[in-house]
């Protein structure tokens, strides 16, 4: 019986911890509303539909063939124009996805939002 109690104890801890992670400590302090929110959601959706995660990372999740994108927006050597150029034409490794202007704007907005949350990347 002891083994069963240990299992149940661990599982209860897991359930409680999961609830905590789902509800506390993982929310962003940024409050987004209206068109801004819709654009970011569209950008995220496009990021997933085109499986950008195969080549690029966000917070460590994703492949390494392309550059990490968590702080692409604020990186002095990259920034908005750099992101737009690749989204519109592709690159040596990156296919040209033929994004429309609206789609490009949405992905740029999404990456800008991700960058604004990346406080741990910007520590001195």
């Amino acid at each position, binding site marked *: 019986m002891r*083994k*069963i109690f240990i299992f149940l104890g661990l599982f209860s801890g897991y359930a409680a911890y999961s609830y905590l992670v789902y509800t506390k400590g993982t929310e962003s302090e940024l409050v987004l509303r209206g068109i801004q929110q819709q654009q970011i959601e569209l950008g995220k959706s496009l990021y997933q*539909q085109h499986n950008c995660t195969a080549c690029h990372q966000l917070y460590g999740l994703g492949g*390494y063939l392309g550059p990490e994108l968590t702080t692409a927006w604020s990186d002095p050597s990259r920034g908005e124009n750099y992101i737009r150029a690749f989204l519109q034409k592709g690159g040596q490794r990156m296919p040209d996805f033929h994004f429309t202007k609206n789609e490009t704007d949405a992905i740029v907005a999404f990456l800008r939002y*991700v960058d604004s*949350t990346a406080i*741990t990347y910007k520590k001195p």
Partner: protein
Amino acid sequence: MKYFSPPHSTSNFPVARAFLLLAFSYLLFGLLLGCIGSFQYLWPSFLKNKLSFQQSRPLHVYLVISWIFTSAQGAIYYFLPRVTGRNLFWPGGLKIHFILQLSVSLLIIGAFFSGHFGGREYLEFPPWLGILLLLSWLPFAINFFCTLKPDYRKAPVYIWSWSTGIFFFFITVSESYLWLFDHFNKQIIRDITIQWKALGSMVGSWNMLVYGAAMFIMEKITNDKRISHNRISFAFYFLGLTNLLFNWGHHTYIVPAAPWVQTVAYVISMTELLLLGHIIWKWKKSLTATKNKYGNISYRFLSVADGWIFLNLTLAILISVPSLNYYTHGTHITVAHAMGATIGINTMLLFAVIFYVLGDARPLLLQRKERLINRSLTLTNIALYLFWFALLGSGLVKIAGKLNNNSFYKIMDQSLPWFRGFAASGLLLLAGIVALVSTAVAVLLHSRKNETGRKFNKREVKRSGRHLI
């Protein structure tokens, strides 16, 4: 096709054979796609418009993951009647499981080729296929729990391990789709954290299936039931479970979250690996004492896995130190750790289990292939070492590049020699695995009647003497 199998016989071998053949096809195609992916590091335009990295990587990841759980499922189906002394609860479920899994795989592969993605790490296929994936596991779960009717007060550790693996596979795959709800999808930090949480635990769930199968064959080879009932084995199991539940934190050092979560998780995961190494070490001593030759082939694979546990442990300790993790994260050093775990540990343990099954069902035939298996294992292991060091090398180049503020493209250029190294050793690894798989398939497809088609000398017969379960 007769699926029904009386206890203490090998007549359920066709079931194991079907699942193992499916698992081998996942492995071979998965490795081939991995090689194609490595060529795309060397020649960026290689298959760029026909099978871009956007497609080759998810295919590789999905197929290799499927190899791990499908081969474990095949072995568990083979072991179940032997463990329980009962026939499988739902023989028809085997066919349903097989057809469902094959159909889901074809749909997922089709989705990737046609450019339909879900865009999430590991589970990069559209979400509705995730539901089918879970459904395909249902007949397996029903057969497992209803055949076993486990009494967990007395059950050996591998029963606990398998039960946990199945139970948490359903939980973690479901959890990984929480992003479909706005509460998770609209908060990037929450979404990323839950993704790491679900994926970390999902890896733990199939590890439980593999470790359980490895523990089962250890018990059978040593003919020592204490190994799967003693306190240290259960201590290992509960540490493994704790690791499955909470260790995901060490992936999230760079995600804004409470640091103590990662520190606790790190300590737990390290303890689990140490304990596993300790158990295998003790088992080897016990094996030497019994001088049981039957399990030699499986034993060699377990020993190789043992070596990789210690190598991976060392690497894990280094990359889990937060100040080092800051640099190693996002480099191929993380990939080296993943490859050491999936190929060095999981795949070697699975081959140990598969060759145990083959040794049980086709002992004389397997004996004839022993030399070829040994050579293939040596080739695979050498290739894996080269592959692993090439990945570490490219990771170190990237760290140096970051420290010098080099651009991504300059770092990629500087890494080219290491990319060549991992592409070449990847091919060598593919050759070694192809040799192992083709040997195993030759034994799998050979009928029992033909097994005695050639005369064996006394030494061969003695060496292959079956260890009855």
